[in-house]
């Protein structure tokens, strides 16, 4: 942290402490961030559901039907946080962000399952306001009755112990810590630094300091964090896939239409299947190999219960 930022933060923190005390006295509850607890541990019918040949919303509906509906994951009155990839200030056709129609459908289904609040955020790379807007996700979430939250403010990120090999601690967005259900919605893309970005890589958007990961063995940090934070559900958008020049892409010519979707509770399983869909062997992506070796999840797809649906 730069000194002047520190001073600014210190000044604000000082004022805010006073204000928080004042608000507390007025009867507002002071937020307590609880440590992660295991959620939704009931066995599912399938370890992986793969759907293809449909529009993003129809793909998701089909996957949910196969798994027994959204109520398997979201109970009435729960708070849900949906974390798509909204990293870039580009339009949906460029496939650099998660498909807005998919995000919309997920939020709608969460609401229909009785979710009290459905939060949506990402710690974007480009300016968050323009990325939310250009990606179409701002409109999608509004239409579906979800709540967009900024990922750009450091104060939303609370220190957590990760306890990995290279990543021992991080600052994680408080909505992930405080919500009942965490749905991870990455988009499958080529990635110049990490080879491929899917579920585990998408979690870089729920922490504050990504630079630390980049300068301390990126693949190991991704695997370390994946061992610490396991989403309740991973929905991989492979409707449009950025085949090269990822993760941002230069033009629509970088995009291949695959009209597919993967759903799994296990990030390693989801990422391994996504790698195959992309035309890579999962072993070629270091963090998938490392995470599997650390026991984060399973990449032996042939031994798993896989539901394949073609619409």
């Amino acid at each position, binding site marked *: 942290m730069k000194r002047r930022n520190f001073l600014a933060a210190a000044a604000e923190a000082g004022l805010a402490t006073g*204000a928080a005390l004042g608000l507390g006295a007025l009867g507002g509850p002071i937020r307590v961030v609880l440590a992660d607890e295991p959620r939704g541990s009931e066995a599912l019918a399938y370890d992986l559901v793969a759907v293809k040949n449909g529009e993003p919303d129809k793909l998701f509906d089909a996957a949910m039907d196969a798994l027994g509906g959204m109520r398997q994951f979201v109970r009435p009155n729960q708070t849900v946080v949906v974390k798509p990839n909204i990293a870039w200030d580009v339009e949906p056709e460029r496939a650099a962000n998660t498909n807005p129609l998919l995000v919309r459908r997920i939020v709608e289904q969460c609401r229909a399952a009785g979710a009290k609040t459905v939060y949506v955020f990402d710690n974007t790379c480009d300016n968050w306001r323009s990325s939310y807007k250009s990606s179409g996700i701002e409109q999608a979430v509004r239409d579906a009755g979800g709540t967009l*939250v900024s990922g750009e*403010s450091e104060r939303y990120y609370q220190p957590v112990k990760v306890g990995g090999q290279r990543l021992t601690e991080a600052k994680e967005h408080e909505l992930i810590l405080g919500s009942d259900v965490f749905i991870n919605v990455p988009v499958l893309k080529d990635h110049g630094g990490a080879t491929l970005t899917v579920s585990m890589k998408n979690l870089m958007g729920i922490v504050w300091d990504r630079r630390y990961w980049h*300068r301390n063995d990126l693949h190991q940090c991704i695997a370390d964090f994946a061992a610490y934070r396991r989403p309740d559900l991973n929905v991989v958008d492979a409707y449009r896939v950025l085949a090269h020049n990822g993760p941002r892409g230069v033009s629509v010519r*970088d995009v*291949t239409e695959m009209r597919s979707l993967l759903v799994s509770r296990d990030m390693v399983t989801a990422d391994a299947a996504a790698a195959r*869909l*992309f035309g890579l062997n999962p072993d070629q992506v270091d963090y998938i190999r490392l995470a599997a070796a650390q026991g984060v999840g399973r990449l032996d797809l042939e031994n798993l219960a896989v539901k394949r649906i073609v619409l």
Partner: protein
Amino acid sequence: MQQHRLKPLRALVSLVFLALTTALFVDVQGLLPTGFRDLVLYLQVVPSLLRFLEGPAWAAAGILVVLGTTLLFGRVYCSSVCPLGTLQDLISWVGGRWRRNPKAVRYRYAKPHSRLHFGLLLATLVGAFGGSWLLLGLLDPFSLYGRSAALLLQPAVATGNNLAARGLESWGIYGLAPVTWHWAGAGVLAATAALLLLVVVLATRHGRLFCNSLCPVGALLALASRLSLFKIRIDQGQCNTCARCSVVCKAECIDLKHKRVDFGRCVACFDCIPACPESGIRYGIAWARTAEPPTPPPPPPSPRRPERRRRLLIGVALAWTAGLGLSGLKVRAGAVPAEAPRNLRPSRVPVPKAQAVAPPGAGSNARFNATCTACYLCVSACPTRVIQPALLAYGAKGLLQPHLDFGVGFCTYSCVRCGEVCPTGAIRHLAVEAKKRVRMGQVHFIEDNCVVVTDRTACGACAEHCPTRAVFMVPYREDPQLRVPELDIEVCVGCGACEHACPVWPHKAIYVDGEAEQGLAQPPRERSPEGPAPRVPVPNVGTDFPF
């Protein structure tokens, strides 16, 4: 119309202009549309003048409107439109209520500082022909006000916003987003605060003395207002020299001894009209005189007060110089960010930057330096905060002018916000597609600092952020499993995304150096020239899955 209503009307109009202008500079959530800026700032003299000089057009003709109004009605701009003028009125109003002896005479006629005032105007013009608007930028009342609002008021608004956001957040309401803001460097802050302090002190003691001794716009309009059709005049027959008008005259320009108003210095505030119980001071057509005033004898010298003023000016100048010195220290101290935790092996090669990076659409540093008055509206409006105030980023010629600071952020590829808001046209308003081709600077790679090379671990943060693939990843020659950045400088726009994203500490492995002349970048290529052949994913449209 009853003439005593002119004063409240003027006060209302001036407060509206002040509020709207201030809103532009403290719009931390970016809510105000571009058209709003055009409307509010249309009549600002210096921005309009600079625009008009570059390309006469109706959109830049605010200066003509102001000059025309002044020729008709006097310095209405100074009393109603100028934000610094209204600020001074507020300060002297508050000062008047809080002073120790409220009954003491507030203002009295003072002799003009014509030599200083018009000398400064002349110096400004001479400087302008020499290619430097330095003095104008410093003393232009709009820019001076803008700097003060952007640097001193905006942090307060942002902090208020963030406190409110935090309060709502504690109830689980996330609708109000916190905003990030940064302190300007100590030198910039000191310089801005010193000039503002000068204005405050002058306003507290002598009303509109700044406008009538230092302000170049005041000097220009003073020349015009001497020829005004409508003027404030004293009715020789009605006036009984009670001095009620003179003690409320912020411009200290009512000369009761000779029953004359120095209309060049009058800012058309109309405070004198309701103050007169005899209706002896009125606003009317200048040549419809009732009686010839006697020729004024040379005013007696007042030995003490100018001496104090001189001391004050010297004090401010000293504070300024100290600020310049301090900022030099700040720049050096700020070169190494103390950001923990760090990479395993600190990078060793210092970044050799030579040129400041001007905002997109500046044309060239020389053009930018000659047109920017450092009002900091771009600083306030930039969504990523990459445009930061600087004291001497361009050397003395660009004193206080803002530059792109990639330590704070980077320039969004498709954003033209700074050009939209720039009041003087120093940052041209480009179409998005044109802006995407502007080369603000050029990327450089220091392989010895790169974490892929030093630690043999994957990174790619720079290439990831590059919007044009001017930075892309190629297999590393010593370990083909790893990929290192490669540059395609012809497509680089100098947005600084790579530099901002580069994680190594303390010296970046990739950086953007400014270009004295902003060039034209090639459009992004479909495939980087030396990049890997694109992978072609299996288009899975059949009934089988690859797993």
